[in-house]
């Protein structure tokens, strides 16, 4: 594969790019996600659904429901959709799961490769731009219905704040300062967070808001998985602060999820927001 006749071939020593994707494209293009291309026609593949992210005082939280669907069938009940991409960033994936996971893997190697070759990490905007380029590279597949729309969250060490970036299938990058959601249930999750989000939330408040939003998404979107009480499957929550990426302990998440569900027993539509009070600005 990599060495011809034992000796490392010339491409390995070539001077130039610090990008792993560019190296892969010139050396082993068959390994790039979606390199095989697809012919026209309908294809049934697993889809990931809803990802939610919100910033809080000193960091950013991202959570995803656990359901993957193929058409009307639930393909998996406990899929992981949020992945750490380096020490200070993570990606949540919505869309065609196979391509999204491959793209995330490539993005992880891309960030680490740059860090090792250059001896320094990419800026947060640099990371977001690299991800945008990967998504743009998948445009052909997206036209065939195999779209991938990730949500990118990072802690920016220079600004000392959590940041969220959303993308569309053409790689258009938008920074969101407060919260965002992608996937089939995102309309409902965003509506929910609109009422629940407030400036200066603590970490656990932000996690509660994200779990509430995912509950609302599952409430109205069939493809989004709600809390699975019998199997004790709850959303996976990741937090990034100045100390780096951390996956929330599942027991701690379950506890907050139980509180949320407890509240919904009395009021199935969730917490009430004041009708006219607009004291807080964001």
């Amino acid at each position, binding site marked *: *594969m*990599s*060495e011809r*006749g*034992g*000796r*490392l071939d010339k491409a*390995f*020593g070539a001077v130039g790019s610090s990008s*792993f994707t560019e*190296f*892969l494209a010139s*050396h*082993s293009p068959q*390994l790039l996600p979606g390199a095989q291309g697809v012919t026209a026609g309908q294809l049934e593949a697993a889809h990931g659904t809803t990802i939610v992210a919100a910033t809080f005082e000193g960091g950013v939280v991202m959570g995803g429901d656990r359901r993957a669907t193929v058409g009307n069938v639930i393909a998996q009940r406990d899929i992981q959709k949020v992945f750490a991409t380096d*020490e200070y960033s993570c990606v949540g994936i919505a869309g065609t799961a196979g391509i999204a996971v491959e793209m995330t*893997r*490539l993005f992880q*190697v891309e960030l*680490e*490769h740059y860090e*090792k*070759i250059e*001896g320094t990490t990419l800026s947060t905007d640099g990371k977001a731009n690299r991800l945008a380029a990967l998504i743009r590279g998948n445009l052909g597949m997206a036209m065939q219905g195999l779209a991938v729309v990730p949500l990118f969250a990072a802690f920016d060490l220079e600004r000392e704040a959590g940041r969220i970036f959303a993308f569309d299938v053409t790689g258009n990058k938008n920074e969101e300062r407060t919260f965002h959601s992608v996937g089939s249930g995102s309309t409902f999750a965003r509506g929910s967070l609109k009422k629940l989000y407030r400036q200066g939330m603590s970490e656990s408040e932000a996690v509660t808001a994200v779990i509430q939003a995912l509950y609302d998404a599952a409430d109205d979107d069939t493809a989004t998985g709600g809390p699975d009480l019998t199997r004790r499957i709850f959303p996976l929550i990741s937090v990034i602060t100045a100390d780096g990426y951390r996956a929330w302990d599942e027991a701690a998440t379950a506890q907050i999820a139980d509180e949320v569900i407890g509240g919904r027993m009395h009021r199935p539509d969730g917490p009430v927001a004041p009708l006219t009070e607009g004291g807080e600005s964001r």
Partner: protein
Amino acid sequence: MTAPFYVSPEQLMKDRADFARKGIARGRSVVVIRYVDGIVLVAENPSRALHKVSEIYDRIGFAAVGRYNEFENLRIAGVRLADIRGYSYDRRDVTGRSLANAYAQTLGTIFSSGAEKPYEVEIFVAEVGDDATEDQIYRLTYDGSVADVQGFGVMGGQSENVEAYLRDHYTADQDLTTALRLAATALGQDGNGGRTIPAQDLEVAVLDRTRTQPRKFKRLADRQVAEALS
């Protein structure tokens, strides 16, 4: 017409080896030492930016002496090889042994090819395992030969003095601070009494198996090195 001089293959190889060896001896030494939780790599290197010790992959570190452009080229090739292998298979499938083999083949081919100047470099490839029995350190020389290093290894500069000191003072199962002190003193051995190398002139990195992250390679900041040496 004059007949071309006949040079025996033995003489040719000897000349090439002498050339490479001279280049390598000109620089400063690099030391690798196994300690109880992993492997520490120490180089005398006043430069902040031009590293002699670097990360290749999760469990694999790289240290080199000799010509910077040549070993930097090998380092980048190693990172690319490791990343492409880890990406197309799995992270666990990247091993120090395969990397050492690729380096050996590359250096060996360059050394015996008449068209290229031999590389004036020596390399350590260190891999930390789940426990001490799985730790591996390979030493690669300019001609592509590979040696398995036990306990500690030295290359470049006045390596005989440094090696003699380590042979007398190295003990298995030492902790990081002890290993670092030993490395610093050993690197200062110049054959006439020795000198003290200031902490900021030492480039230190560890492959620490107790780290919870998959990436076990970590550079030690000047402050940490100074604390360990004081």
